[in-house]
């Protein structure tokens, strides 16, 4: 029977939807991954609706008394005027923590997305086509991976930030998104390596040989025959990359290589309030650090759950 592309697409979509449903159920079946997913979902809601949820939606709102202790009362669940206190400049820490969720999700999420899309296209093509180009790119990827990601990120962000671009030029717009770009660039080779080894395995299967005999183009074979089978491996890699990206964004922010002040970046807030300032306003460090800790734990538990769910489903 001849299957039209539309039919095969709709059947693959429904197959994938059923797979996603199964994966979601598997994700919430274990207590660890359910906790992780719930934490990530919580912060994701903060990232989406932070502007509406924060009592003082301006990130640099210095109109409050400085160094007010947290008014949060856990016993009676009363928030008070400044639940997490105010920092030494009179900014509401609670609002800033809520507002900070969006930047870390945007940078880590978009960076991961770009790297997964480009990295898997590159890696699958390398794995399927083989030959000298694959050999050369594979070596380049190995060499790139020998340099720790944080080191490369620091160097790239540090250099790009110091270049002088004309204000309002496209280069200046790119330089504002330097962290996002650096994450995308750093993780493309990592994803490509995973996608390549998945493609190497899949291309020996019969349906790929069948498509080759039908005379399909390599682009068709890579995206329509190999990609669907590589999705489990890519989903696991994407969730792993996302958890590392969150970690990297927080670390870069802390080292002063993330968003510039006065942005409510959690890592930056931790850095701004350490040392001698910790004695003055410990809460201004502790709450953003807690937010980072909870998000990192949540993302780790979730990506571990995704890995288990996919391995169980794929076997």
């Amino acid at each position: 029977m001849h299957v039209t592309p539309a039919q095969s697409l709709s059947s693959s979509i429904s197959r994938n939807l059923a797979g996603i449903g199964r994966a979601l159920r598997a994700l919430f079946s274990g207590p660890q991954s359910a906790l992780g997913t719930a934490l990530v979902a919580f912060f994701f809601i903060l990232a989406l609706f932070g502007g509406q949820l924060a009592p003082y939606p301006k990130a640099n709102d210095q109109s409050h008394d400085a160094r007010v202790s947290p008014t949060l009362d856990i016993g009676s669940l009363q928030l008070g005027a400044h639940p997490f206190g105010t920092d030494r400049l009179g900014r509401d820490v609670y609002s800033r923590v809520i507002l900070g969720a969006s930047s870390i999700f945007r940078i880590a999420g978009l960076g991961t997305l770009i790297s997964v899309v480009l990295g898997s296209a590159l890696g699958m093509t390398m794995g399927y086509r083989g030959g000298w180009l694959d050999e050369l790119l594979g070596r380049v990827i190995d060499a790139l991976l020998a340099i720790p990601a944080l080191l490369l990120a620091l160097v790239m962000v540090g250099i790009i930030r110091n270049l002088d671009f004309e204000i309002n030029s496209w280069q200046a717009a790119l330089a504002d998104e330097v962290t996002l770009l650096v994450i995308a660039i750093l993780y493309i080779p990592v994803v490509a390596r995973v996608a390549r080894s998945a493609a190497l395995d899949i291309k020996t299967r019969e349906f790929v040989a069948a498509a080759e005999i039908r005379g399909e183009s390599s682009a068709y074979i890579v995206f329509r025959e190999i990609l669907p089978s590589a999705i489990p491996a890519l989903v696991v890699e994407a969730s792993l990359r996302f958890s590392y990206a969150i970690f990297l964004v927080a670390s870069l922010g802390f080292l002063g290589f993330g968003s510039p002040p006065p942005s409510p970046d959690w890592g930056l807030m931790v850095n701004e309030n350490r040392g001698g300032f910790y004695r003055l306003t410990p809460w201004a460090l502790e709450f953003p650090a807690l937010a980072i800790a909870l998000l990192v734990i949540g993302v780790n538990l979730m990506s571990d759950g995704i890995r288990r769910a996919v391995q169980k489903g794929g076997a």
Partner: protein
Amino acid sequence: MILFLRRRFVFFFFTYLLSSLMIFFLLRVLPGDPARVIAGGREATAEQVEQIRSELRLDAPLPQQYLSWLGDFARGDWGTSIAFRGADNRALISERSINSGRLALVALLLSVPLSLALGVIAGLSENKLPDVIISLLTLSVVSLPEFVTGLFLINIVALGWSGNPLAEALGWWFPASSAVPANASFGEMLPALWLPAFAATLVMLAYISRLTRAGVIEELKRDYVRTAALKGIAWRTVVLRHVLRNALLPTITVIAISISWLVSGLVVIEFVFGFPGLGSLLIAAIERRDLPLVQAIVMVTVSVILLANLLADWAYAALNPRIKLG
């Protein structure tokens, strides 16, 4: 084994050359003028830019610049620092590398036995209570960013401990790592090393212990384990004599790979603790736009990582009789 090692050595050399190319061109090909970046960006005057351009031979063609830079690096002529006026880059880097090396050594001595033990316990009790507790720990607390655990150790453990009467009575507390002079001896430095080394231990713990656990679980499923158990050999002996020997072999590679993790971890940890190591030097060099110093530090770091990998390959080949066939 000779063949295997020769292949690995060729790979090492190739990777090394490629990464040196990457380090060089990453800082050159980026849009903008490196001389202007070093001179201070927008505020620099034309004469300052010109002076730096001629000092660093930035007007030569790029391939020639690369070759002369690589030649200078190989000969040990790493130039003088721009950020640390007049200081010799090589002296600066070797002093800081020794400090980072000490920190890494203490961290490895703490983390390797601890994570192997945790990994073996978790692997032997797969999906039972000890395994669940260990995997929850390694996934959550231990995988926190280094600066969160580092700040916790400084503010809660070190400052909390220093005030109490027990610390006074013992005469023992955690001195601030930032107060250590960069040229202190190992003995003088050691008290200030414990806390940063512990923070670094946490970075590696999750990684090594999870891979050890996977190795133990895989070996336990092998036929020879069942055969040995059915022969009536005590379970303890089966585990100690057979399973661990095979399961711990890949761990050598894992430890070498985690050196790379340790390196990035140390950058953050040294910054948090104000420890005078290579990582904090790198951050200072980037902030002060000292490109030659940045390049030299990254080259040194990559050398260390690649050498660790080569050593691991050699150790693996020496310990694994099966490699000799290949």
